[in-house]
């Protein structure tokens, strides 16, 4: 009987070893670009006094079902399963988000507040696009003071993007404005709060324009609020809010302080109160970082899980995988000198050459194929022959070899 022939599954070639669907390999070229992004972010975050943390890949599911932490749409996309302790009934997840675990870790360890923390780690979420593992460079400024925290976090993001050759634009909004609008719509019988907030979270304020025929002042407010513009837009909106939506004024004032300070410090700022945002999660100023016509990160003020009523924090996450892909074409492989000992009696001398080059910050390895850059050293007794794009040079002192090759570093 031919048991190969009995096989009827749709993926008969599944025996080939492949990565799990949606997961990501970072190969040498990817890693070089990834490290460039990571280094830029790490440098910017460190300059502003942030300390690095790393949280576990696996967290309890209930951490993310805590009130308001994640929406049903996000929770339906987590990788959840029973681990070895699943007999207890507690499910675990591959972390779908880093903000909540960082806040959890800080609370669990009793870190002093305020705490400035940053991380570089991956998150896992089901996606129909086969892109289910994302890397993020993120900041969490726990117990961040109003406005100061928002400014700081936005500055780190801008400096990171600038270091990568991008010209960032900060798009600023405030969830308090959308909350005031939806509350007014509910009060005037234009729908229920949950449905409206869900709609705004996905589509922004724009779809609400059609709902307010009966309330001209609110309609006017929404019309202006869905425009994009400089910080001056907020002043004009405040004028309308005084009559139509006084509840929106504190949010407008807070957004104004942040937008004006960023603009005056030389940042490119756009006020965009209509942008979609998760209103269960954020509590104050929200922002998005654009450059070269694409969004690269987002953040804002939120109430961290487990910190009690009134707790506040500010965070952001930059899309590190996409940023790495963007900078990859301009990221060169590090030059490596190939050292070729001619015989067994030249091995020790070859090692000495390598050590001397390494001490000078020049990458060098033994044998193998010559580096495409054309840098190599042939070791034969006392003779050292360096091959560079400029030709062949015969030497005998290690310092001479270093002195020659350091020019190509």
């Amino acid at each position, binding site marked *: *009987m031919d*048991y*190969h022939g*009995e*096989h*009827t*599954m*749709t993926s*008969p*070639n*599944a*025996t080939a070893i492949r990565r799990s669907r949606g997961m990501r390999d970072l190969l040498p070229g990817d890693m070089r670009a990834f490290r460039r992004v990571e280094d830029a972010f790490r440098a910017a975050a460190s300059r502003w006094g942030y300390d690095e943390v790393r949280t576990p890949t696996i967290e309890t599911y*209930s951490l993310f*079902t*805590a*009130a*308001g932490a994640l929406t*049903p749409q996000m*929770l*339906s996309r987590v990788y959840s399963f*029973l681990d*070895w*302790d*699943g*007999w*207890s*009934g*507690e*499910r675990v997840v591959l972390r779908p988000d880093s903000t909540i675990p960082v806040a959890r870790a800080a609370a669990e360890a009793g870190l002093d507040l305020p705490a400035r923390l940053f991380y570089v780690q991956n998150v896992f979420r089901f996606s*129909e696009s086969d892109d289910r593992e994302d890397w993020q460079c993120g900041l969490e400024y726990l117990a961040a003071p109003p406005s100061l925290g928002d400014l700081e976090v936005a500055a780190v993001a801008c400096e990171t993007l600038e270091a990568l050759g991008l010209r960032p634009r900060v798009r600023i909004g405030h969830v308090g404005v959308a909350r005031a609008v939806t509350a007014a719509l509910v009060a005037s019988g234009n729908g229920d709060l*949950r449905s409206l907030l869900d709609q705004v979270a996905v589509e922004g304020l724009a779809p609400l324009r059609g709902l307010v025929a009966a309330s001209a002042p609110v309609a006017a407010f929404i019309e202006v609020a869905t425009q994009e513009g400089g910080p001056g837009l907020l002043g004009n909106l405040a004028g309308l809010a005084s009559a139509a939506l006084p509840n929106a004024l504190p949010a407008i004032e807070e957004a104004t302080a942040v937008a004006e300070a960023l603009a005056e410090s030389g940042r490119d700022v756009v006020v965009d109160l209509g942008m979609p945002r998760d209103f269960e999660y954020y509590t104050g100023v929200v922002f998005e970082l654009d450059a070269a016509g694409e969004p690269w990160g987002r953040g804002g003020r939120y109430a961290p899980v487990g910190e009690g009523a009134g707790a506040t924090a500010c965070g952001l996450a930059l899309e590190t995988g996409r940023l790495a892909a963007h900078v990859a074409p301009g990221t060169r492989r590090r030059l490596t000198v190939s050292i070729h000992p001619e015989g067994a009696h030249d091995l020790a001398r070859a090692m000495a050459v390598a050590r001397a080059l390494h001490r000078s910050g020049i990458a060098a390895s033994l044998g193998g194929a010559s580096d495409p850059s054309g840098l190599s050293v042939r070791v034969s007794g006392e003779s050292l022959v360096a091959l560079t794009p400029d030709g062949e040079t015969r030497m005998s002192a290690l310092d001479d070899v270093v002195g020659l090759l350091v020019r190509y570093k």
Partner: protein
Amino acid sequence: MSVKLALPAGDSRAAVAEMLAGAGITATGYEPGSRILRSVVEDEGLTLRVFREKDIPIQVALGNYDVGITSDVWLSEMQVRFPLQHIVRVGGLPGARTEVWLAAARESGLTPGKLPPASALDGARFASELPNLSDMAAVHMRIPRYRLLQLYGSADAYPPEDADFAVLSAPDGAAVEAKGLVPLWRLFSGGLALIANADSLGAKPLGGLLAGLAPLLTGESPIVEMPQTGTGAVPNRAERQYDVVRLAVPDGHAQRHTPAALLAAGLAFDGYDEDGYVRRPVSNVPGLEVKVVRPQDMPQLVAMGMFDVAISGRDLLHEHLCKFPGSPVQMAVDLGRNRYRIGPVVDEAFPAATTAEAVRIWNALGRPVRIASEFPATAERFARDHQLLHTTIIPVAGASEGFVPEDADFLVEGTETGTSIRANGLKMLDPFMESTNCVLTRATPVTSRTDLLGSLMARLRDSVRAPAVR
């Protein structure tokens, strides 16, 4: 090119058989009462296979079967969690409608149709054999830190002391009330569905089969409606009592051996015998609470400390410990009844007489070896212990004998007499374990009545030492 049709076992079988006959589709071997799980109708180019309804959407989505007839509830249960399946619901078919209800105990003080606010439900416990629909309900209600107890069945047994909510199938809300529960929200309503694999629709000659069934199709669609956080009353929430010993006894097939085993230990419960049961039989031992639940769920219930003692099976304990080696559940007494063997089961034409010979053949296939089992963790352990190089485990809800050889290379399956295995043209290689019914306890008891627990264990141990019982 043969068209493969997946048909439901169980309650729907008679109605579906009648429907197929009415549509002029020959379904040899699918007659009610037949034990055949697989047949080929050469003239119509049709291969029929009987599955538990729960398995049909999975088999059609995988492309192992082109067309299936199943209950909408299992299709929705799969699709709310796995939206990318290559499956098309062609239409509804006439048949009984099923609803899925979120329900609470009467003791909760909740009233039909009134959901409580999420803020009053922190840590609420859900019990269900529909985990995906239950999850969706809990997250839409925004219940913080909710817990889900995934069951094989009998969810209605759990509220109020073992769960705050049950999510269960019922014909309607009145049927939920008849089970002693309060129907709070209808999550789902649907009937029978004709489903097809999307790729098969584009590539295989399904026209004849679809033409036969087309006149029967109804326009009815399943309805999934997720609840929001409510504004109703704050529920009374019950916890288990620790000043009693809680005993779980089985329903289903395992029930027939249990009353005699209990009686041998001097235990008889009013409302629990070979012929029937009530959910909460009355114990003749003061301080002993008894509840009837599915034996498959018992290891987890004891591990979690919801029950102190359970009468289950060694096969189920083994499965649980394969999955959770650190679990505190243990076998306290082997009751020695309900004896059967578990081993690899292959097609009778498979060219091996021993497991070792079979492993050599499977490892030379050059593709994953497909193992179907109602005991997926046990099957995985078997594969590891026998150094099978590359395997795919197919968890199945039942009717597993029909999987071999087309849909699986072998089963990890139990047999008492071998009748069902032989009837389906299969044979067992070397059995690797023998199962009997047994008493489960927790290594570290949670009840404060350790005196009562100790005396109960002594009675059960003594009962199996007595010659009359052996």
